[in-house]
C-alpha cells in the first residue's frame, strides 16, 4: 500500500513562496540586497544632512540595480541637495519615463520644476518673470535665507 502525501495547501504555497524567494536571491539578487542596504545607508546619511555621502550611496545602488524609479528618485533629490540641478532634472525625467505613475517621484519632480523655473532657469528675455509665483515654490514651507 502506497501512503499518499497530504500536505495542506497553505503550507504548500508558503513553501513555494519561500522557494521562489530563495531562488531569486541565489540568482543574482545579492545585488538587490546590497542595493537596498546602500539605499538605507543613503537615506540615513541624507537625514543627517550628509548629501554627498547619500548621493554616492544612491548612485552605487543604481549601479547594482539599474533604473529603479525609487533609486532614481533618491539620486535626483540628492543631486538637488548638492546643487547639481541640471543633472537632477535629467534624473527625474529618466525616472518618470520608466515609471510615470510613481507618486513620490512625480510630486518631487513637480516641486523641483517650480524651484527650477523660479530660480535656476528663469524665463527667456521678453517673457516676464512673475515674482508672485516664486518663493512659495508650491510648498508650504519654502523659505529663503540670504
Amino acid at each position: 500500500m502506497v501512503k499518499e502525501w497530504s500536505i495542506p495547501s497553505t503550507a504548500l504555497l508558503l513553501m513555494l513562496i519561500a522557494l521562489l524567494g530563495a531562488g531569486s536571491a541565489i540568482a543574482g539578487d545579492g545585488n538587490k540586497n546590497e542595493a537596498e542596504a546602500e539605499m538605507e545607508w543613503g537615506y540615513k546619511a541624507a537625514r543627517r544632512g550628509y548629501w554627498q555621502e547619500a548621493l554616492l550611496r544612491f548612485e552605487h545602488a543604481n549601479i547594482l540595480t539599474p533604473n529603479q524609479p525609487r533609486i532614481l528618485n533618491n539620486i535626483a533629490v540628492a543631486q538637488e541637495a548638492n546643487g547639481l540641478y541640471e543633472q537632477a532634472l535629467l534624473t527625474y525625467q529618466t525616472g518618470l519615463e520608466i515609471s510615470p505613475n510613481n507618486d513620490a517621484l512625480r510630486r518631487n519632480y513637480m516641486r523641483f520644476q517650480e524651484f527650477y523655473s523660479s530660480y535656476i532657469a528663469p524665463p527667456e528675455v521678453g517673457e516676464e518673470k512673475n515674482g508672485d509665483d516664486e518663493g512659495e515654490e508650491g510648498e508650504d514651507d519654502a523659505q529663503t535665507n540670504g
Partner: protein
Amino acid sequence: MRKRTAELLLLIVAVASLGYGGTREVRMQLHLKPELHLEGTESVFVGPILIEPREGEDIQSIDLTASREFEIYLRKILRREAELRLLPNEKDLRPESKHLAALMGDAAFWQAINEDTGADLIVAASIDVKILDRAGYTTEEYVSPQDGKTYFRQVLVEETGFSYDILLVVMDGKTGAVIHEEQITDFKPQNERKLEEYTDMFTDLYTLQNRLVGIFVPRTVQVKRTLFTD
C-alpha cells in the same frame, strides 16, 4: 476554503511588500549662487530711481512716494541683507533721460557717477506702481481623497493691493556697462480700506527681497522632498 484563500492573499501581499521601501519626507536646503560674483569689497552707489511713466498717464503722487520708498528700501536691503558697502547719496542726480532703458546705453552718465563718488557698482532702477483690485489664478497642492495622490490645481484668488513693476540694473562704474538686469513684478496685498496709505510699501515683500538679495549674495531655499527609505 475562502478564508484560507484570503489568508494566503494577505500573506503574499505582505511578502511582496517586503521588497518595497517606505517613503519619508525630508527638509533640505538648496543653495543658490548669486547672479554677480562679487569680492565683497566693492563700493556701491544707489541711484537714480526713476519713475517709469505709463503711456498717456501723468506721474501721480503714488509714483513719487513709491520711488522714494523704494530707494530707502533698496538701501536697507543692500546694507543689511547683502552687507554691501553703500556710498552716501549726496547729490541729486539729473539724468538726461527718464527712461532707464535709454539711460543704460549712456556709458558717460554712469562713468560720471563713478568719477564723482568712486563707486565700483551703481544700482539703478525704474519703478511703476499701480493700485489695483485683481483676480487671478494660483497653483495649489492638494491630496485627492479618492486616490490619495497629490495633484496641483488652479484656484481663483481675488486681491486688492499694490502691483509693482521694477526694472533694476547694476552698472559697472568704470566702464558704464550693464553688468546685470532684473525685471521684477510683485504684488502686495492690501486691505481695500488701506489702499490710500503709502507708508512701508515695500515691507514684507518676500519675493522682492529674495530677488534683490540673490543678485549680490548666495541664498538658500528650504524645501521638502520625498525619499525612499530602502
